[in-house]
């Protein structure tokens, strides 16, 4: 990031890029500047190392061991053989691949084809490089073995025809077809117990197994033995780092760096085998655990330290008190950690999605602030250090969120708002007072709920005690589309839904709504059946014996993370497009059934024609329909009704772990894909355009400012969900003055008092975004947050870019 580039930028846009200016770089020392630059400039690549080790191991050992032990030994083998990387300047060490941004593949879940690898190597956006030699090796060594053995094939061989049809037309997605269930965050255990402590505990549980009375004793013994092997694997992995650091220190000419390397070796010999003793070891401890979980399997959203500030605060305070740590050192270590996370791009997908989708990043969403498990304020000096780090580094990952409870100090909220104002796209803002209620409503204890938070996007769980599996997105507006065509998807012409009657046979809005509701239940049930099957596939074939170490009560129960080991086992379906479905229903209700301005046939014809030749009608709908997000009960009551009916359809459906499904309301970037597979909708949205994200209003539909938006959202009883998502775009001009920051803070407090779960802000101006499209190289650091995740604007495809631009700009002048 050269200073020259900063100078070329229009001063008007300057507030979006403040982190690049010298004033903000000041906080970073030279080491961090260099590490940041390296991380920023590293080209993501694919590493076939893990696949080669794993394939060789499986070829020799499959069938010799019970599955959990096979998986643990496979993990051990990878830890033993993989390339160890320690970069110049690094203090926190360890990479999943052989070097930064080098990503392994997970053929046991889904095996990339030669074609996939070529596409990934050559596609324009989000390219992952791989050499022809590696592709040849992959074709020879890896692909033939895994044919017919991958999770993905197991799943697709099982699914019924109706499911496949609905899946293919874009009625829903399935998370677990390419990755393992994830969305995991840790509690404070790893700062109190080392892996050797956990091994002792495992041994005690093995010794107390009751083979006389417990029919599951054998399974439990296998799982527990596998967990113990996983402990050894991670300790070995750390020791290999210690060895390398020692070795490097011998030849290091700079005595200062040599001393650092010796210190790194010392840290890596201590953690994760033992509980950390200081701030440095605490961060390295977490990082090894993080690496272990993302090496063992490719879980969704990777991994998350949870309330990192709360966990680190005691180490920080101790270090400051006894003089072994300065604030600057703590910040430097924190920055090193941030850069480590940023180095870890997500493994790319296979098949059609390799071409179209895929983000570079996983979602490690740091929870800052919030409440402690006793309900008191969780903000500490470490929280402020983290905010400063976010502001100074301005990198894609980790994501971050400030958690604002009624007891959170105003100073912290305003400090967070000032970072928001920089326009990084984060931190987003969460409301513990509401999500604690959400978690307790699902049956968590008060203490466990308070220790919970957000793991990746907006979904919340009880950190360190819960497997909360997100199964995929449901395209709610498409359910209406199919309803209006008597079960047929008009885009593909395929019959995917129930025959609930031709649209012109509906005499009243209630007739239409009843049919829509029937279709909702039909698709939800269909999705649940397959999700339950997939759940068992992971429990049987892909136990996560390392991750299970850190989630209570897997050790005590002798059961895996994927097999009811956790204290809580939750399953979600994420519903997308609340704004689009509400506005579409409102349009039909008003114009077809109430005002009878248009007949149903006219409406369907216009949608069929993508409103070509019907522009007058489209404009009338756009400008004369009550839309969600304007504090207008006519629209908001429809949104509330749909929300409640989705809840009724999903809530309580049994999962395979003795618990049940719940409603979630997020979309990440899936609203763009869902929009692509849909024709025009009754709210005037054109075919192929993105549907609304999460629970946000449709793009451009919210014309009464942010206070009206939060009032509309506040009418949903969000406690019934496992999370809602509100994206609010703010023009920089609304946040110019110091007092505007305070006003933003009170807007957030108000939304949370109204029962809001989450809100995030995009502080960008349209001009900037258009300029970025025209001249991408000048805007490489332009970070935009879309629907629950941040990405570089330049890395987004044209649709996503258009989506960002189309979001309503709040003008109040």
């Amino acid at each position, binding site marked *: 990031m050269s200073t020259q580039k900063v100078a070329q930028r229009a001063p008007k846009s300057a507030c979006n890029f403040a982190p690049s200016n010298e004033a903000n770089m000041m906080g970073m020392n030279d080491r961090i500047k260099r590490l940041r630059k390296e991380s920023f400039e590293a080209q993501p690549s694919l590493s076939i190392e893990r696949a080669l080790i794993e394939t060789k191991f499986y070829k020799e050992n499959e069938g010799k061991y019970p599955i959990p032990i096979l998986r643990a030994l496979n993990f051990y083998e990878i830890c033993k053989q993989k390339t160890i990387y320690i970069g110049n300047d690094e203090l926190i060490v360890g990479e999943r691949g052989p070097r930064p941004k080098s990503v392994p593949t997970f053929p046991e879940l889904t095996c990339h084809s030669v074609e996939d690898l070529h596409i990934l190597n050559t596609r324009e956006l989000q390219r992952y490089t791989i050499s022809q030699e590696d592709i040849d090796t992959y074709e020879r060594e890896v692909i033939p073995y895994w044919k017919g053995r991958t999770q993905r094939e197991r799943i697709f061989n099982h699914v019924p025809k109706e499911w496949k049809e609905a899946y293919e037309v874009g009625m829903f997605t399935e998370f677990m077809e390419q990755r393992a269930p994830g969305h995991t965050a840790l509690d404070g255990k790893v700062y109190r117990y080392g892996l050797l402590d956990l091994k002792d505990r495992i041994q005690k549980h093995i010794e107390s197994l009751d083979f006389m009375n417990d029919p599951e004793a054998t399974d439990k013994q296998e799982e527990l033995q596998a967990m113990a092997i996983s402990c050894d694997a991670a300790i070995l992995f750390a020791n290999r780092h210690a060895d390398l650091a020692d070795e490097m220190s011998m030849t290091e000419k700079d005595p200062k760096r040599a001393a650092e390397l010796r210190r790194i070796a010392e840290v890596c010999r201590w953690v994760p085998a033992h509980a950390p003793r200081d701030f440095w070891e605490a961060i390295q401890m977490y990082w090894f655990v993080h690496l272990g979980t993302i090496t063992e399997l490719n879980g969704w959203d990777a991994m998350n330290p949870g309330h990192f500030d709360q966990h680190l605060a005691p180490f920080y305070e101790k270090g400051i008190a006894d003089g072994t740590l300065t604030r600057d050192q703590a910040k430097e270590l924190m920055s090193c950690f941030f850069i480590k996370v940023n180095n870890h791009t997500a493994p790319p997908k296979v098949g059609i999605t390799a071409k179209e989708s895929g983000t570079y990043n996983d979602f490690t969403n740091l929870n800052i602030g919030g409440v402690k498990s006793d309900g008191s304020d969780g903000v500490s000096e470490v929280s402020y250090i983290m905010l400063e780090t976010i502001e100074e580094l301005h990198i894609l990952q980790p994501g971050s969120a400030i958690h604002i409870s009624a007891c959170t100090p105003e100073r912290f909220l305003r400090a967070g708002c000032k970072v928001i104002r920089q326009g990084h796209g984060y931190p987003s803002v969460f409301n513990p007072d509401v999500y604690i209620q959400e978690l307790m409503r699902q049956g968590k204890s008060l203490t466990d709920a308070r220790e919970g938070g957000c793991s990746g996007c907006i979904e919340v769980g009880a950190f360190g005690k819960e497997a909360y599996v997100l199964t995929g997105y449901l395209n709610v507006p498409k359910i209406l589309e199919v309803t209006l065509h008597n079960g047929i998807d008009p885009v593909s012409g395929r019959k995917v839904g129930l025959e609930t009657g031709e649209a012109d046979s509906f005499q009243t809005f209630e007739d239409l709504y009843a049919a829509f509701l029937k279709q909702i239940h039909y698709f939800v049930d269909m999705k649940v059946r397959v999700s339950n099957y997939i759940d068992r596939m992971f429990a049987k074939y892909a136990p996560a014996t390392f991750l299970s170490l850190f989630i209570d009560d897997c050790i005590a129960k002798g059961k895996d993370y994927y097999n009811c080991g956790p204290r809580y086992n939750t399953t979600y379906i994420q519903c997308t497009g609340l704004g689009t479905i509400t506005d579409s229903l409102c349009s039909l209700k008003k114009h077809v059934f109430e005002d009878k301005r248009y007949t149903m046939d006219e409406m369907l014809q216009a949608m069929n024609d993508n409103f070509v030749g019907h*522009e*007058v*009608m*489209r*404009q*009338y709908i*756009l*400008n*004369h329909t009550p839309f969600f997000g304007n*504090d207008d009960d006519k629209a908001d009551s429809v949104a509330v009704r749909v929300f409640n009916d989705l809840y009724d359809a999903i809530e309580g459906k049994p999962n395979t772990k003795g618990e049940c499904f719940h409603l979630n309301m997020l979309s990440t970037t899936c609203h763009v894909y869902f929009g692509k597979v849909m024709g025009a909708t009754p709210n005037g949205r054109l075919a192929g355009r993105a549907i609304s994200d999460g629970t946000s209003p449709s793009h451009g539909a919210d014309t*009464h*400012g*942010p*206070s*009206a938006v*939060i*009032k509309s959202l*506040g009418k949903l009883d969000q406690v019934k969900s496992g999370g809602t998502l509100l994206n609010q775009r703010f023009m920089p001009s*609304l946040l110019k*003055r110091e*007092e*505007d920051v*305070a*006003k933003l803070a*009170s*807007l957030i*407090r*108000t939304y949370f*008092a*109204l029962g809001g779960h989450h809100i995030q802000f995009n502080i960008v101006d349209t001009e900037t975004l258009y300029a970025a499209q025209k001249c991408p190289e000048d805007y490489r650091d332009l970070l935009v947050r879309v629907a629950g995740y941040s990405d570089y604007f330049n890395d987004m495809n044209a649709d996503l870019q258009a989506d960002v631009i189309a979001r309503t700009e*709040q003008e*109040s*002048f």
Partner: protein
Amino acid sequence: MGLLFDIKRYAINDGPGIRITLFLKGCPMSCVWCHNPEGIGKKPVKLYTRKKCIGCQTCVHACPEGALELTRSGIVTDKTKCKMCGTCVEVCPACALEISGREWTVNEAMREIEKETAVMDRSEGGVTFCGGEPLMQPDFLLELLTRCGQEDIHRAVDTTLYASEEVVRRVIPLCDLFLVDLKLMDSEKHRHYCGVPNERVLENLRLVAASDVPYWIRIPLIDGVNADEENIRKSAEFLASLPKPPEMINLLVYHDIGKNKHDKLGTTYNPHQYAMRAPDEATQQRCLDIFAEHQLTAKIGG
């Protein structure tokens, strides 16, 4: 009943906290730089936004008077034929035609204000009545102020104070903050640029300053009109001479956003082409310095 021409939520430049601003129609002044010219007249006016117009001519066919025509510059209304019946606005699919100014009952207006209370409460905001000139509709304004007072809603009145002494005396006890526009100290110039002399403004301001109600002063800072040393010095001297000084003086740097509104109204902005410019930073600073010399708190921006 009263005539409003706009309501804005999340208003962050019209007084303390987050506010809802009600725009009361009708103004006795006609400042050349006015950026809400549609608020000047006492009756509803028709606005036309060409950018929104899709040229469908639905309005042309619907108009019972045959007053509309699609020309190369968009829809043109023959004002001699138009009876302001509103048919064209109702049928316009794109909302390119709008009527600015609608009758509101006090209850309707209160329901709208109450929608914003959640945000007001937490930001120490409230409601701001502006215009036009809110004092032009005293009965409506006084009733709204009374009702808001009963509901503990903070009330600001953004006014030119160009009104009868009696009206100002009645508003004072029902108001929590005055935002007073002060444009020019020279009455003749004031008449020249704003259409009316300023004596009444200054007298009423003395009245406000003598009351318990705090007030802010808002000065549109226009190079070529009032940003000269003499006018600013006189303003400062006058304000410093009042029984109590303003809590804050906001110097609002000139912009010509009003042009856009004149386009919609079909009128001409600054028809006499007075030279009006945003003062440069040095001038802005000098103005701030002059107020500071008089122990008055001033800042750039609202």
